[in-house]
């Protein structure tokens, strides 16, 4: 073997949070001490977060992984000959062959954890820019038809068909249009946007540029939450590099077409993840929800036609354009086409990113990929789809994870986050938290959300305290109905979902036997 060995140590925030920086430093020091030539690539995370820090070594057989690596393991890794892929107690073998990865179907996340996130040449070597080059030769309508035919729906949570949104923006006869990427990933239990922005930011940029070509927009904005400093850094660096390589700018890949991207940072407001509140915030105002219509695709940022899409939606576009709509459409179930980047979070043994075709049973994710709880206790519930999603009991885990199947059981897919809880959780406490969170984060524009959430907390407290339990339960259900039907956006409108699902499935935690008549209200 000649030259240096390539060692991968992630720079993903989650990997850093458990010591990846220290590992990178130790590998470098140890290699120097032993006179070994190594090139350390700081990749994104492969998404097997329970194995972080996951160190990989490039060998003739593929990339061999070791993890989770503690600082004190580095010396023994060198002693064992890990630079040649030799066995060590932390060996995972060839990472691509590892069961957890081999069983996934990674399209949107194909490059995350594999490439150097800030190398344009690495991006191109792994299929990057093929789609943008192709889109530059296509008619705008043809691009939109392709996205429409793929069946791609908004991955932020609403699940609105991307093609229809783009079509609306294309048809608006206005000079200035915008592509806004919603990277305000505030849902607890979700981190796919963050990992993609840190691990493959060019995919997002390419997707935005294609969207710009499709609808005739020359300006893109990424609204990223301030709680994601690593993603902000990666995006800013990637935008500069993309401009240097003419992926962005006044002459996109020499085509004469214009597309620029600006990174904007949020300021700590959950509601700004709602698309109209995000637009208000991008306009420098209070992030208060707008009434719809008009739809943002007709009158969005500064009153101009604006496509607002989630990070995952936009980052899926390059794959669809380069592989063709039918390849994407062939995956999935019913009207839920393509793949979903699921996120296994909370009390789960093997947490992380699982990308699979929509329709996979929840049980396969929680018990299969996730391996049950980390504490080893029985799974009591999983909250699916973020803080506004339903708490499902383990008896309901056979539900296929797609938009329609979840809706049919009073749940929602949301952004694909799955938070696992063991049997020590008290569901009345979780329901109370849902109302409390809504009270804290409500933008205040509509009354059901602003006032209802506060009353919700109080009423749950009374139920739990045993104070006129039946009457207060009736009141809570009534309140949930008002919030569901009367709120302007999903914040107030969906907060009843976790509350009611907790009541329906775990009434004993509230000190009641069952919730009759609770099927009315809150069905999203």
């Amino acid at each position, binding site marked *: 073997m000649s030259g240096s060995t390539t060692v991968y140590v992630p720079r993903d925030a989650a990997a850093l949070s458990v010591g990846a920086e220290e590992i990178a430093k130790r590998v470098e020091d140890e290699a120097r001490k032993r006179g070994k030539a190594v090139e350390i690539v700081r990749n994104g995370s492969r998404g097997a977060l329970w194995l972080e820090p996951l160190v990989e070594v490039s060998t003739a057989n593929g990339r061999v992984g070791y993890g989770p690596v503690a600082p004190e393991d580095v010396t023994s890794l060198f002693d064992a000959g890990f630079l040649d892929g030799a066995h060590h107690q932390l060996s995972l073998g060839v990472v691509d062959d590892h069961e957890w990865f081999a069983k996934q179907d990674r399209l949107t996340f194909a490059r995350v954890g594999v490439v150097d996130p800030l190398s344009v040449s690495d991006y191109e070597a792994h299929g990057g820019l093929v789609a943008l080059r192709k889109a530059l030769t296509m008619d705008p309508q043809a691009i939109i038809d392709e996205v429409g035919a793929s069946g791609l729906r908004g991955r932020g949570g609403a699940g609105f068909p991307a093609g229809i949104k783009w079509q609306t923006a294309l048809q608006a006869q206005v000079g200035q249009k915008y592509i806004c990427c919603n990277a305000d990933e505030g849902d607890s239990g979700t981190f796919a946007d963050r990992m993609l922005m840190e691990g493959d930011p060019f995919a997002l940029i390419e997707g935005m540029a294609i969207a710009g070509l499709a609808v005739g927009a020359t300006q893109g904005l990424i609204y990223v939450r301030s709680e994601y400093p690593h993603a902000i850094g990666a995006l800013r660096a990637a935008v500069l590099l993309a401009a240097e390589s003419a992926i962005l700018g006044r002459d996109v890949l020499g085509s004469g077409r214009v597309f620029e991207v600006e990174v904007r940072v949020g300021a700590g407001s959950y509601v700004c993840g709602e698309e109209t509140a995000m637009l208000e915030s991008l306009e420098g105002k209070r992030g208060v929800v707008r009434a719809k219509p008009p739809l943002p695709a007709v009158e969005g940022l500064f009153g101009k036609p604006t496509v607002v899409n989630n990070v995952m939606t936009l980052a899926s576009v390059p794959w669809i354009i380069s592989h063709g709509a039918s390849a994407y459409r062939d995956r999935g179930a019913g009207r839920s086409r393509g793949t979903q980047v699921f996120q296994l979070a909370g009390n789960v043994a093997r947490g992380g990113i699982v990308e699979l075709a929509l329709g996979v049973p929840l049980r396969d994710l929680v018990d299969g990929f996730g391996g049950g709880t980390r504490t080893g206790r029985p799974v009591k519930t999983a909250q699916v789809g973020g803080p506004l999603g339903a708490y499902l009991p383990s008896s309901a885990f056979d539900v296929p994870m797609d938009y329609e199947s979840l809706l049919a059981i009073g749940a929602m897919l949301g952004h694909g986050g799955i*938070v696992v809880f063991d049997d020590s959780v008290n569901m009345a406490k*979780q329901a109370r938290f849902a109302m409390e969170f809504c009270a804290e984060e409500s933008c205040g524009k509509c009354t059901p959300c602003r006032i209802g959430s506060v009353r919700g907390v109080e009423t749950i407290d009374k139920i739990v305290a045993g104070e006129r339990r039946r009457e207060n339960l009736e009141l809570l259900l009534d309140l949930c109905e008002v919030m569901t039907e009367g709120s302007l956006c999903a914040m107030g409108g969906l907060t009843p979902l976790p509350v009611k699902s907790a009541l329906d499935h775990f009434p004993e935690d509230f000190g009641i036997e069952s919730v009759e008549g609770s099927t009315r209200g809150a069905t999203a």
Partner: protein
Amino acid sequence: MSQFADSEGSVLRALQAIQETFGYVPDEALDTVAEVCNVSRAEVYGVFTYYSDLRSTLPAPNVVRVCIAEACQASGSDSLVAAIRAELGLDVHAKSRSGETEIAPVFCLGNCALGPAALVNDRLLGRTTVAKIRAALGDPR
């Protein structure tokens, strides 16, 4: 500040830039922003008070943010909050402060598979313990 004049939608960014520079937004800065952006002081005040990141006082040298959202609850954030109270003498509520350190709750840091999560200055922690917070405070990066 002049970069924000004539620029559409610049009130929030102007306030963020001021906070970036001074660590907080001094009261008189609201007048400056109003003037530069050509909007009323009331409008600027409305934006300033809406966003939880924006603050009217200088932060402590060390800022710790502890995630208390669902995924971290499932991973024991309640116990972490209790341990912080017992061992550091700080409540994870509102803007609680003691000497060089202030601590506040946060809803999600995107580290939901390795909870409980915390952010010590700009350093993200996973599987957080009081010992890890202490170590990060001793070596803030």
